[in-house]
C-alpha cells in the first residue's frame, strides 16, 4: 500500500489536473457556474424550513442554521459517493489507454466535492456570523468548540474517501451499486439527524425504553459526524422545539452533549473505511479494463 500511495504522490500533478477538469466540466455550460454548488442547499433550507415551521408548526429558533449544519456535511458525503461510483465508468476510455494510478480518478471527484464542501462552510459562516450580527438580533456566536472543526473534517474526508474507493471499484463490476446508493441515500436523508437534531431521536419513547437503540443509531459514522458538527458550531438546541405540542413557556428537555467516546469510535470507523476501501480498490484495479 505504501508503494501505491507513493505512486499517487508521484502523479500529483495529474491528480491536480483531474480535479481542475472535474470543476471545469461540471459547470461548463451553466450561466450561474460555481453558484450551483450553493443554490441547491439554500433551496433545501427554504423548503425544509417551510415544512418544519409552516406545515408541522415547530418553532425552532435559528432553524436554518441547524439545518445547514446538517445539509453541508450530508451533501459532501452523498454527492462525493455518487460521483465516485460513476467515475471509473465515465473515464473508461482514459484508463483503457493510458497508464495512471487509477485511484486518482475517484480521488479527483472526492477532492472536487471537498472544495465545494469547504466553500459551503465559508458561505455558511459569512451568512450566519456576519450578516446575523449586522442585523443586531444576536446572530450566532463563534463557539470555542469550533477548534474541533478540522478534526471532524478529517474524519469525514477519510470516511468519504474510503467509501468512494469501495463504490467506484464495485460499480465497475456491478451496475447495481449506483441504484443501491441512490435508493439508500433517499431514505438515509430522513433517517439521519439532518433536518432534525439527534436529540429528537434520543427522546423518542422507544429510545428512552431501550437506550442501546440510540447508541446503535449513533454508531452510523455519518450521523455521528453530522451531529458533532452541529454541536461544536451551534449552541445546544432543545429537542422540545421539534415537538408539535410544545408551546412557548413550557419546560425544555435539555440537549445531550457530544458523546466523545462514540466520536472516538467513529474516528476508528473512518480510518477503517479508508484502509479497507484502498485495499479493495488496489485488489481490483488491474481488472477494471481487462477484457479480451
Amino acid at each position, binding site marked *: 500500500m505504501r*508503494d*501505491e500511495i507513493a*505512486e499517487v504522490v508521484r502523479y500529483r500533478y495529474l491528480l491536480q489536473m483531474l480535479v481542475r477538469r472535474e470543476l*471545469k466540466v461540471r459547470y*461548463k455550460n451553466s450561466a450561474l457556474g460555481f453558484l450551483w454548488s450553493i443554490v441547491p442547499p439554500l433551496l433545501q433550507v427554504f423548503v425544509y424550513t417551510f415544512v418544519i415551521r409552516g406545515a408541522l408548526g415547530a418553532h425552532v429558533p435559528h432553524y436554518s442554521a441547524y439545518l445547514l449544519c446538517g445539509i453541508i456535511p450530508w451533501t459532501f458525503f452523498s454527492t462525493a459517493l455518487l460521483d465516485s461510483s460513476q467515475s471509473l465508468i465515465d473515464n473508461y476510455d*482514459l484508463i483503457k489507454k493510458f497508464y495512471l494510478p487509477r485511484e486518482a480518478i475517484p480521488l479527483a471527484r472526492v477532492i472536487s466535492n471537498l472544495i465545494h464542501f469547504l466553500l459551503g462552510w465559508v458561505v455558511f459562516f459569512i451568512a450566519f456570523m456576519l450578516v446575523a450580527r449586522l442585523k443586531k438580533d444576536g446572530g450566532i456566536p463563534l463557539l470555542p468548540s469550533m477548534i474541533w472543526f478540522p478534526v471532524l473534517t478529517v474524519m469525514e474526508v477519510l470516511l468519504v474517501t474510503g467509501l468512494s474507493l469501495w463504490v467506484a471499484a464495485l460499480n465497475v463490476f456491478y451496475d447495481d451499486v449506483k441504484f443501491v446508493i441512490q435508493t439508500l441515500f433517499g431514505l438515509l436523508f430522513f433517517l439521519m439527524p439532518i433536518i432534525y437534531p439527534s436529540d429528537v431521536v434520543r427522546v423518542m419513547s422507544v429510545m428512552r425504553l431501550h437506550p442501546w437503540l440510540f447508541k446503535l443509531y449513533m454508531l452510523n459514522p455519518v450521523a455521528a459526524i453530522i451531529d458533532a458538527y452541529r454541536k461544536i458550531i451551534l449552541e445546544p438546541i432543545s429537542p422540545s422545539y421539534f415537538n408539535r405540542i410544545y408551546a412557548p413557556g413550557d419546560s425544555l428537555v435539555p440537549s445531550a452533549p457530544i458523546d466523545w467516546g462514540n466520536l472516538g469510535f467513529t474516528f476508528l470507523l473512518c480510518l477503517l473505511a479508508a484502509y479497507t476501501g484502498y485495499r479493495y480498490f488496489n485488489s481490483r484495479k488491474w481488472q477494471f479494463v481487462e477484457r479480451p
Partner: protein
Amino acid sequence: MTHTDAEILPDPDKSAMHAIEVSHLSKTFLIRHEPGSVKRALIGLLRKPRIEHFHALQDVSFTVPHGQTLAVIGRNGSGKSTLLSLLANVYRPTTGTIKLRGETGSKARVAPLLELGAGFHPELDGLTNISFYGAMLGLTAEQMQAKRDTIIAFAELGDKVDTLVRGWNDGAKLRLGFSIAVNTDPDILLVDEVLAVGDEAFQNKCYRLIGDLQAQGKTILFVSHDLAVVERVANRVLWLREGRIEQDGDVHQVLQAYRDFSLSESH
C-alpha cells in the same frame, strides 16, 4: 512499482541497445459466464460461475532496438491489442516481463498515440486538453508550459486552441494528438490503427509525421490491419496468430507469408 521501471540488468551495454524487451509474455483473461449484477452475485454464491480461460498471448518474446519501427499484424483476436495494452502498462502480464528503456538505458517514456481524440475531453478547450494530456504522459506543469507554443504551432491550430474540442474536426484532433506525442519527446511511441483514418491528403500528412519521428530516432510499435501502411512505414513485421508469434522479421517476407495465409483462410 510499474513493470516499466528499469531493473538491474545483467549486461547494461548490450541491453541498452533495446528499447523494448519482451520475454515469455503471456496474458490470460478469465471470462466469467455471468452478467455483473448483485442479484447474479448472490445467486453465484450458491452456484459456481463457469470460468473460461482465454489465452490472449502465449509465451511471446521479442526485442526492438532503438529507432526501429515494428508493425504488429494478425487477424482479429490474435492478441495485437492485448500486446499494445500490456506495453502501455494498462494490463498486467499474467507471466513474463516487459522492459522499456530510453536510449541511455533508463526507464523509457512511453506515449500511446491513440485513435482520434482519445484522451481529449470534448467539453474542454484545446489548451486545457494539452495540459491534461501532458500530465497523462507524466510531464510537469513547467515542462508542459515550455512546450505549449511548439505543440500548438506544430498542430497548426492557431486560435482554435481556445475553443472546445467538441467543435473540432477529426483532422485537428489527430494533429494535436500527433503534435503532443512528437513534442513531448517520448522514447517509445505506441500507435493503434491511427494511420488508416482520414482522406488521402490527411494520410499523407500522417506518413510525413511518422517519417519525422523515425528520422528523430524514435522507436515505434504500431498495430495495423492495413498492409499497405505496414509496407510503407515499418522496418520489421511481427505476425501474431492466436496469441503466439507466427513470424517475425523482414517486412516483405512476413507480409507475403501473411497474405498467403489470409488467402488460404478465406477459402
